């Protein structure tokens, strides 16, 4: 094919054998695995297990999302109540890895003790570390978060800290032993998306070699796509799927959005500009006026 300016590019050819003649754009490895603490993970969507209308809908949503990792928690249970046991049996049957959380912990001691209990119950050293500092926003207490991350990392935990886009806190978390960072998009459960795009962009640029997962506050698949388009490695969400009218369908939508965003990021999006530039060549336009 020859451009109007005389240069030529290879013509795309279709359907000529396995991989041959397929336009280059379709060969982009959109969902190549990334690694979290040395574990290769193909799906860049991590899903929470809370607030679903039923266990069956939870199971279907997990399956439809294609996720390989789900978050879980530990809560009080009486001896007669077997719902926790049933839930654990359900999750184990889905063939996914669990990422236990320290949700609701407000102190370093609470978070550390919860993590220790989670490691024993779930049989994993992975821990989504939440140290909550404020009741309205459920924002991290970043000081307690760094302290707890240091204690847990020294004790052999693989810490996934739920943090903000604060770069100094991120540096401290990495110094404390974290090898993954999970900044919020917006406060937990708000569905507002990416509240501080500029801060999240800066964070991505500042830590190019660190797996970054946007966790919390996403409400729409387009939010997830935007996170992936920025180059984030994955997203973690719960309420946006669980509280949708059709959680399983929404899980499918999020899976597609994550793939679309990742593919777009790898494809190299165009640079935005303020002024228009014609997409149709001006050369050769008929003089009709």
């Amino acid at each position: 094919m020859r451009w109007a300016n005389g240069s030529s590019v290879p013509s795309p050819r279709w359907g000529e054998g396995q991989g041959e003649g397929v336009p280059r754009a379709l060969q982009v490895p959109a969902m190549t695995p990334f690694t979290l603490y040395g574990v290769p993970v193909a799906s860049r969507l991590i899903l929470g297990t809370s607030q679903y209308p039923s266990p069956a809908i939870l199971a279907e949503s997990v399956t439809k999302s294609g996720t390989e990792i789900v978050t879980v928690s530990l809560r009080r249970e009486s001896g007669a109540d077997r719902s926790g046991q049933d839930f654990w049996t359900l999750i184990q049957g889905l063939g996914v890895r669990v990422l236990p959380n320290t949700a609701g912990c407000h102190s370093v001691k609470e978070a550390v003790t919860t993590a220790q209990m989670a490691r024993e119950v779930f049989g994993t050293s992975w821990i989504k570390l939440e140290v909550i500092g404020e009741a309205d926003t459920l924002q991290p207490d970043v000081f307690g978060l760094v302290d707890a991350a240091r204690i847990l990392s020294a004790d052999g935990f693989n810490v996934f800290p739920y943090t903000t886009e604060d770069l100094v806190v991120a540096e401290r978390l990495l110094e404390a032993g974290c090898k993954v960072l999970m900044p919020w998009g917006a406060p937990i459960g708000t569905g507002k998306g990416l509240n501080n795009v500029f801060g999240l962009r800066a964070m991505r640029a500042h830590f190019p070699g660190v797996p970054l997962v946007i966790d919390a506050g996403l409400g729409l698949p387009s939010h997830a796509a935007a996170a992936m388009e920025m180059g984030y490695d994955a997203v973690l969400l719960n309420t946006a799927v669980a509280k949708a009218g059709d959680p399983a369908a929404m899980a499918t939508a999020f899976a597609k959005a994550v793939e679309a965003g990742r593919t777009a990021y790898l494809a190299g999006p165009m640079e935005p500009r303020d002024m228009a530039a014609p997409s149709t060549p001006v050369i050769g336009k008929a003089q009709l006026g």
Partner: protein
Amino acid sequence: MRLKVNGSEQDVAAATLAEALEVLDYSGTVVATALNGSFVPAKVRRDTRLTDGDAIEIVAPKQGG
């Protein structure tokens, strides 16, 4: 002995944490325990003696985000 179990005070006829779990009908369940705010691994529950007024937390897998 008078214990606080998951926030509720009750009389529990047990001398160790392991016995308390049996008496409270937790046999065969997947749970984690803490005594007075500190984690007690399952393997040492039998050797963990209880005292009047102790607070026990017994937690199980649950949904989470």
